[in-house]
């Protein structure tokens, strides 16, 4: 069965638009990305003046309004879901009149736009029912709310990507033995959920390899590990499971070898030695993506992928401020292994006054449930200066260094230590376990300081002005393609200004 993935923000918008005190039925078009699942992008409400018919038991927009929205939706390479409300019903079902109307619509739309997808939904005070076309008929679609814990009133009978069938929740005796202590912590169902979960892990350096190790020990079912790099000698102080004889081998191969041992052979590990930007389809079957990369470009990519696909994304990173920053000796003082914390955290505190203030180590874990809490760009974590340097070709980089546009220390390796990575990895895994097992509501953002042993938990909200998940963003658009084009101006003289 296909699923309609929908963010908490979109659910709220549907309820605000369609369920009003006068209990009239109302209509909206949900524009959705069309992957294997439908991904809700936005709600386009139809105002009362644009309705051809509206009462407490029926509603229908004017035909020209229907045509306009359906065409606009297809122009944007999205799928329309024609949605109306049953304000009188908590858990709504399509009525017999709805079913008859939908069949007429199906014939009309299929004739007008052959081979294009569409769907229908009905919204009640607590539930949503939906169907989508499947060549010759309409087929039921399950509903999944990303970040459903952000809703005041949850949607009834939703699908969770982490849930397991009751019949599947038993574990074999050997599995019970291996995971006995885990089961005592979060139950057989929690353990089974972990075993059914596929995680895409982007970056298996010092931090990523520790997360992978913990996931393997926890009994996660499948890991896709993505990293383009080979093992270097300087990695040996941090990467779990990597030893001297691995130098020169790909990181993903070396880490995989270790993970298979850690998991007792039960873990499926898919190694991908590529940049994540070049292999995004490898993440499509994952339930959660975790990013532990040292490039802002890759982080931004993972965030955008998650927002487009309505996928959970966990971004983890550490930061080490060295004393040179405070001393102002011209060297790069504020450095980070994953340097993309929110701007307010980029303020370098005065250091270097006493011995115990000379090095400041921080880490963070950022859970992105697209459209339900803040994404990477909502918090202004994108860093144009860093991405500009990252995206230069070697020749361009050399040219800019010669011109003095890039300082040598901007390209220098960043400080990194195993114990800070270990703390961050544990926090990231902790958030993942909460998300998957449901034992606690996962936090939106955790920031911790090694020096003060302080941890701060932040609640975030998506920003309407966010270029990625906001009104003009790409929430739920999927992998839509506009192809190539040749645009020509209308006949006129091209004058120079």
């Amino acid at each position, binding site marked *: 069965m296909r699923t309609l993935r929908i963010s908490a923000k979109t659910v709220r918008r549907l309820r605000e638009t369609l369920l009003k005190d006068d209990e009239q039925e109302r209509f909206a078009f949900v524009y959705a990305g069309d992957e294997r699942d439908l991904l809700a992008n936005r709600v386009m409400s139809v105002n009362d003046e644009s309705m051809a018919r509206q009462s407490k038991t029926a509603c229908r927009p004017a035909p020209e309004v229907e045509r306009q929205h359906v065409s606009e939706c297809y122009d944007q390479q999205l799928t329309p879901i024609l949605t109306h409300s049953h304000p009188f019903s908590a858990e709504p079902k399509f009525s017999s009149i709805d079913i008859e109307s939908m069949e007429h619509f199906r014939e009309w739309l299929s004739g007008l736009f052959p081979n294009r997808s569409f769907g229908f939904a009905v919204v009640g005070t607590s539930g949503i029912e939906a169907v989508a076309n499947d060549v010759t008929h309409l087929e039921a679609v399950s509903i999944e709310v990303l970040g459903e814990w952000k809703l005041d009133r949850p949607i009834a009978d939703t699908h969770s990507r982490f849930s397991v069938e009751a019949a599947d929740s038993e574990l074999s005796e050997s599995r019970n033995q291996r995971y006995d202590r885990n089961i005592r912590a979060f139950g057989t169902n929690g353990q089974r959920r972990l075993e059914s979960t596929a995680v895409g892990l982007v970056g298996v350096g010092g931090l990523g390899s520790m997360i992978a190790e913990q996931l393997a020990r926890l009994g996660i079912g499948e890991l896709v590990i993505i990293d383009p790099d080979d093992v270097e000698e300087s990695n040996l102080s941090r990467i779990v499971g990597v030893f001297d004889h691995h130098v020169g081998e790909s990181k993903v191969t070396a880490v995989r070898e270790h993970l298979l041992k850690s998991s007792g052979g039960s873990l499926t590990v898919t190694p991908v030695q590529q940049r994540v930007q070049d292999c995004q389809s490898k993440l499509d079957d994952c339930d959660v993506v975790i990013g532990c990369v040292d490039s802002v*470009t890759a982080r931004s990519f993972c965030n955008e992928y998650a927002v487009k696909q309505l996928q959970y994304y966990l971004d983890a990173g550490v930061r080490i401020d060295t004393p040179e920053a405070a001393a102002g000796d011209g060297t790069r003082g504020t450095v980070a292994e994953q340097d993309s914390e929110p701007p307010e955290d980029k303020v370098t505190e005065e250091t270097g006054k006493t011995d115990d203030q000379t090095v400041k180590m921080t880490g963070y874990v950022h859970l992105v449930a697209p459209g339900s809490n803040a994404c990477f760009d909502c918090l202004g974590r*994108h860093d144009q200066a860093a991405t500009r340097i990252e995206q230069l070709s070697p020749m361009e980089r050399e040219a800019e260094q010669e011109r003095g546009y890039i300082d040598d220390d901007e390209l220098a390796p960043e400080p990194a230590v195993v114990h800070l990575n270990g703390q961050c990895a544990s926090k990231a895994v902790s958030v993942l376990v909460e998300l998957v097992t449901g034992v606690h509501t996962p936090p939106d953002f955790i920031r911790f300081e090694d020096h003060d042993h302080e941890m701060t938990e932040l609640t975030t909200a998506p920003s309407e002005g966010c270029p*990625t998940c906001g009104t003009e963003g790409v929430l739920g*658009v999927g992998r839509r393609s506009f192809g190539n084009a040749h645009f020509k101006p209308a006949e006129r003289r091209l004058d*120079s200004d």
Partner: protein
Amino acid sequence: MKRGCAYEEAAKLGDRYPVRYSESDRRVIIERFDYPEGWSPRFAPMRYDLPETYPRDVPTVYVSGNISYERRRPEHLLNWVHPPDDDDAEWAKWCIRDQHVGWDPNRDSLVKLTSMMRASLADPHTDNPFEEA
């Protein structure tokens, strides 16, 4: 890359110039850009390579490798830096450091970048050519 955004901006640019847009290559070519006075020839192509993170980051700009400026070579013209697919030096990089452009993904676009490029090419020796655009 926000594909819908890139496509719409290229289409808008196409209202004024003949424009070839390649989504797969993340490339926009203005086939016949009207270079400001002082450049020769006055009509030649210009190319924008869109970053993987577009529109959060500014495109890389290449001017035609066949054009020249009437006086000394502008500092921003890096005619030894070509796109990776350009073996014939058909293009030359026009250096726009991001801090000079002040690129804002919510406000700027390929149309705006083209206006800024016009200002930059019209006064190619200034240190910060985009400031007055």
